[in-house]
C-alpha cells in the first residue's frame, strides 16, 4: 500500500520518525516526488493490517505538529 503525503502539510523528519516507530510492524520505503512524499508499505504485520495506514498517518501528523 502507498500513502502520499503533501509536503505543504507534512514534514519529512516527522515521516522518518514515524517509520522508525513503526519499523517492527512493516517495511517502509520513502520516496520524495515533487511536492509529495510517497511511502510504500510492505510486509505488514497481519495483526495491524487494517489500521496501520491510518494509525501511521496520525502518528506522522502528531510528529509534524512538533515542527510547527
Amino acid at each position, binding site marked *: 500500500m502507498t500513502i502520499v503525503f503533501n509536503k505543504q502539510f507534512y514534514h519529512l523528519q516527522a515521516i522518518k520518525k514515524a517509520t522508525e516507530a513503526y519499523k517492527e510492524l512493516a517495511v517502509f520505503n520513502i520516496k520524495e516526488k515533487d511536492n509529495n512524499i510517497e511511502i510504500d508499505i510492505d510486509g505488514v504485520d497481519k495483526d495491524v493490517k487494517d489500521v496501520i495506514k491510518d494509525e501511521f498517518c496520525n502518528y506522522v501528523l*502528531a510528529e509534524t505538529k512538533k515542527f510547527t
Partner: protein
Amino acid sequence: MLSDSNKIKLNREKVGFCRFKKLDDKYLLTNDVGYYYFLEPDKFKDFMEGKLKRESDIYQELKDKGFIRDDFDIDEMIKTCSSCNISSIGGPSLHIIVVTLRCNFKCIYCQASRRSMEEKQYDMDVKTAKRVVDTIFESPSKVITIEFQGGEPLVNWPVVKFIVEYAREKNRTEKKKLLISLVSNFSLMTEEKYKFLTEKEVSLCTSLDGPEELQNRNRPLPNGNGYRLTTSWINKIKKDEQDKTKKGHACYYLSALATISRFSLKYPKEIIDEYVKWGFRGIHLRPLSFLGFSGGPAKEKIGYSPEEFMEFWREAMDYIIEINVRGKLFYERGVRIMLTKILTDRDPGFLDLRSPCGAAIGQLVYNHDGKVYTCDEGRMVKDDTFMLGDVNKDTYKKIISNPKVKTMVTASILDNLSCDYCVYKPYCGVCPVLAYALYGNLFPQVINTDRCKVHKEMFDYVFRKLQNERTGKTFNQWVTLPKTKA
C-alpha cells in the same frame, strides 16, 4: 452548534494571555501564573472583544488576575509566578535511597521489581550508604528530604540506621533543613526500631490499599497476614500521635498510600472507610504506573482503562466530599496538590505535576548499588536509560551535569508540547519516563496517553466542584490545613 468564538472579534490590545475551554455552560480561563476565572458565554465574548466595563467586578477581578493585557500589575505577576514555581529551582531536594530491593511482601503491582529475601546481593552496603549521604549533601538545595524506599527498607535495617545517624550528624555542620522519611509495610517493625525512628524524627509512611481482603489480595505476604501486621503498627502509631497532640507536642503524622488495582475498583467507599477508621487525615488514590511488575504480563489481570479508573475515582471523590459535608475533614491528597496549585500561590513541590518535572532537578534516586537515577520512575525502567552516574565513582557535580538531565527537562517542559494550549497547563505535568516506558518515546503524543486523559478528567471534576459553594469551601479548607511538624 458552532461555538461562541465564531462571532468574536478579538481585541488584541485588551486580552492578556489566557488559555480557555468551555466547561459545561461557562468558559474557564487560566493563565501562566495559575489564576483561573469562570465567565458566562456573553461575558467571555465581552472580555475577548475588550468590552467589559472597567468599573465592573468582573473586569477588576480579571485585572487583578492578570487577564487584561494593558491593565495589570506585572511585578505582582512575577512575584506570584516565582512563588508558584519555587521548587523548580535550587537543586534537588528529594533524595530517595533504595537501601534494598529485597521484600517479604509479594505485591501484585510491585513497581520496584522486588527481589526475594534470599537475594542479599541487592542490599546497599555501608560504604555505598556513606557515599550516598555525602553526595546528597553536595546538592545546593537548602531543604533536603531523605526518603527510604525499597524493596522493604526495614529488611536492611543496619544501613537505614547508619544513614539516619550519619545524615543527622553531618547536618550539624551543613545546617540544612533535613527531613527524613521511611516508606515501609511495617511487617518487620519492632519496638526498638520504632523508638529509634521516633527519636531521630523520621516520618513514616505505609501502603494501605483498603480493607483486609483487598489489602491481602493486592499486597500478599507469603505465609502471613500482611494486613494485620501493617494495621497493628498503624494503630499504635496513630494512638501515639493522638497522645502527643493532646499533650501539645509536635509530631509527624503517619501517612499512607493507596494503590488502585483492578481488584480495588469495586470498593471506592470501603477503601476510604478503612482510612477513616484508622484515623488518617486523607488518602492518596494512586493509579497503577504500569512500570515494574504492573507493566508486565500481570497488566491484563490487574490493570484497567483510564475510563474504568476514572469511574472509580469519581465515586471515591463524591464519597470523600460527602464525608466532608457531614463535618469530618478528610482529603484526597492528589486533589489537595492540584488545589494548592489552583487556589494558592504556594508551590506544593509535587514533582510529578509540574513543568518541568522533578526528574534530576527536584529529586535523585540512589539505588542499592550506588547508581543514581533521575527519579523513582527512572530506576523502575529495566535498562539504565535514566541512570546519571554512580556515587562510588562520580561526584555530585558530574552526576548532575549528565546531559540526560537537560533532556529530561526539555522533554517535560509543557510549553514545548501540545499541552501549551491546554487550559490545565499551569497545574499539570508530564512524565518522560512513563512516556519512554509505555510508548518508547520521551516526547509522546500527549493527547493519546492515559495519563493525559486521567489528569484532564480530574481537573474537569475539580473545577466543576469549585463552582459549587459548599464543595468550594471544603476544597479551600483542604489547602489551609495546618501542616505537620515537617
